[in-house]
């Protein structure tokens, strides 16, 4: 009888993870991310980083934490400002010491549906992505190891990590996990376009015509071919797919996807960012070369540079004998009118996404 009990105790003990932590924390509260109408399936979250209320709350704190930068002056939220759909209004991002990045800050919208992060898809997992801007000398320029030391020395963070991850001993991995959790909650699905689909609002005729014009052109219907690259209800590039959109000719100043893969053909290819909240995320393109949506439409309509790397949809249009997209001024205005219906005022004012210590 006794030996059975002892054996049982041993077995159970052998299975338990090592607990060298002084304090026991209650299990965090699971959080479910809703899938908005017509959105694709949410990318399965890592089994070792499920969404929890405590994890998201901690991630939000860290997102706005300037201690994570080398000189304590900037946080993730400096270049990803909620009011601008988590961009910064700059052509190219500015890091610690005023250093300029080669590319612009990307919007953080509907990240839970994405599998390619940054302009060149350098990362496919959110839990890995944040290390780059945190440590990059031209961005926040502080090793995660140093960040962990600084956070561990605070009064509040060890406790918050304990609540989120069961241990007050802060790790690099848990910093990244918390940031990823917060980012996954940045869902934008409440634009006027979304509301119109739900019957809560409506689109004006020119906006509806703009939506129609986003599509493919045929011999009978004009179209701007936007949706090849800005696809689905995410209005974002397809998974693991990158495009050259004819901004430049080879050799490309910024190798884009080719810089990751080493494939010459993929030079000058970039991720197609979401068009949701696009009216808030100027200037446009990976290097912020276009200040307005009008300039962007002019580019796609008339100024696409033809190279072997170019996506053929941009110069294979039945719209015009030149086979370029060649939109009229009125068509461009209709598309821009539609793009403005993708602005989600709820998203940019949602208190859950704001700096908890403004």
């Amino acid at each position: 009888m006794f030996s059975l009990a002892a054996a049982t105790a041993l077995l159970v003990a052998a299975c338990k993870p090592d607990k060298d932590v002084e304090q026991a924390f209650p299990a965090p509260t699971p959080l479910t991310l809703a899938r908005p109408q017509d959105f694709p399936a949410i990318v399965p979250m890592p089994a070792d980083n499920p969404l929890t209320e405590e994890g998201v709350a901690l991630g939000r704190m860290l997102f706005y934490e300037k201690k994570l930068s080398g000189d304590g002056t900037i946080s993730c939220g400096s270049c990803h400002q909620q009011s601008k759909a988590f961009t910064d209004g700059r052509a190219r991002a500015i890091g610690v010491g005023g250093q300029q990045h080669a590319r612009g800050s990307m919007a953080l919208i509907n990240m839970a549906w994405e599998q390619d992060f940054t302009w060149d898809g350098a990362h496919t997992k959110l839990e890995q992505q944040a290390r780059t801007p945190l440590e990059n000398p031209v961005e926040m320029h502080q090793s995660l190891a140093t960040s962990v030391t600084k956070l561990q020395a605070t009064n509040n963070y060890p406790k918050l990590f304990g609540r989120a991850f069961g241990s007050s001993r802060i790790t690099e991995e848990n910093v990244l996990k918390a940031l990823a959790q917060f980012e996954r909650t940045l869902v934008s699905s409440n634009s006027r376009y979304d509301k119109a689909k739900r019957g809560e609002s409506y689109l004006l005729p020119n906006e509806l015509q703009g939506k129609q014009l986003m599509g493919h052109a045929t011999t009978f219907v004009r179209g701007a071919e936007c949706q090849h690259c800005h696809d689905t209800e995410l209005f974002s590039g397809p998974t693991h797919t990158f495009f050259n959109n004819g901004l430049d000719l080879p050799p490309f100043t910024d190798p884009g996807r080719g810089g990751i893969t080493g494939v010459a053909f993929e030079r000058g290819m970039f991720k197609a960012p979401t068009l949701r909240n696009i009216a808030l995320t100027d200037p446009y393109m990976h290097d912020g070369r276009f200040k307005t949506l009008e300039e962007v439409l002019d580019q796609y309509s008339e100024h696409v540079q033809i190279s072997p790397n170019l996506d053929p949809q941009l110069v294979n249009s039945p719209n015009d004998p030149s086979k370029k997209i060649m939109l009229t001024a009125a068509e461009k205005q209709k598309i821009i009118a539609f793009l403005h219906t993708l602005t989600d005022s709820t998203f940019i004012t949602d208190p859950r996404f704001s700096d908890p210590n403004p």
Partner: protein
Amino acid sequence: MSFRTLPAALATLLLGAAIGLTACEDDDQPSTVTTGKINFEFENVVGSQALVIGDAYSTLAGEQITVSKFNYILSNFQFTKTDGTVWAEPESYHLVKQSDTNSRKFAIEGVPFDTYTKVTFTIGVDSARNMAGAQTGALAPNNDMYWGWVSGYIFLKLEGTSPQSTSNGVYSYHVGGFRKPYVSMRTVSPALPTGVASLQVTASQSPELHLKADVQRVFAGPHPVSLRQMSGTGHGADSSGVKLAINYAAGMFRIDHVHNGD
């Protein structure tokens, strides 16, 4: 915690032991397995040459092409046994992309131990799934292979450049369509290679089929296509897409060789 009776305490301990054991064990399946797998590897080629994105090739009609994108969806894999009965893979949808090495290799699992003499699959997506709206996995709408609710899936995408194209030197073929008159799904049964009479799926044998998909056969076949005349399909089902589907169904896929996998 205090136990009021000894039996209750014992029961709890035993339960604990059971949980402990279950959690610890890397449990192997019992030896009652009756299914195995068939592995597929797809190699995209242009005639006798391996397909490399961006490289220059000729069509059978002598036109020059490069390929920038080559994707296709294969579905409803079926394997015919020696007695003529058929085993079909459930939820059988596979997306192959030239740009994604991993996508070109997949295993079909749960294949009953038996001897199979024929392999059949569909290039495209059946109309039921097309009409069911966007799905997940190989059929996720953000895989660059979905037109939308009305038009359904894109079954095959071939894009690239050609000096013969009158559209700024590019071509883009997108084939799909599941409604009459533009039905582009095509079911094919490429023959097992000479000398391979059958595929044995056993506990120790998982055959590996190495298929080649020849880009030249998109342009050639019952409806030879000239890049001078056709640089694109409509985006949505149309007669151009159906012609391409008829072409590639007539011999794009070939089983090049089979490893017995034992």
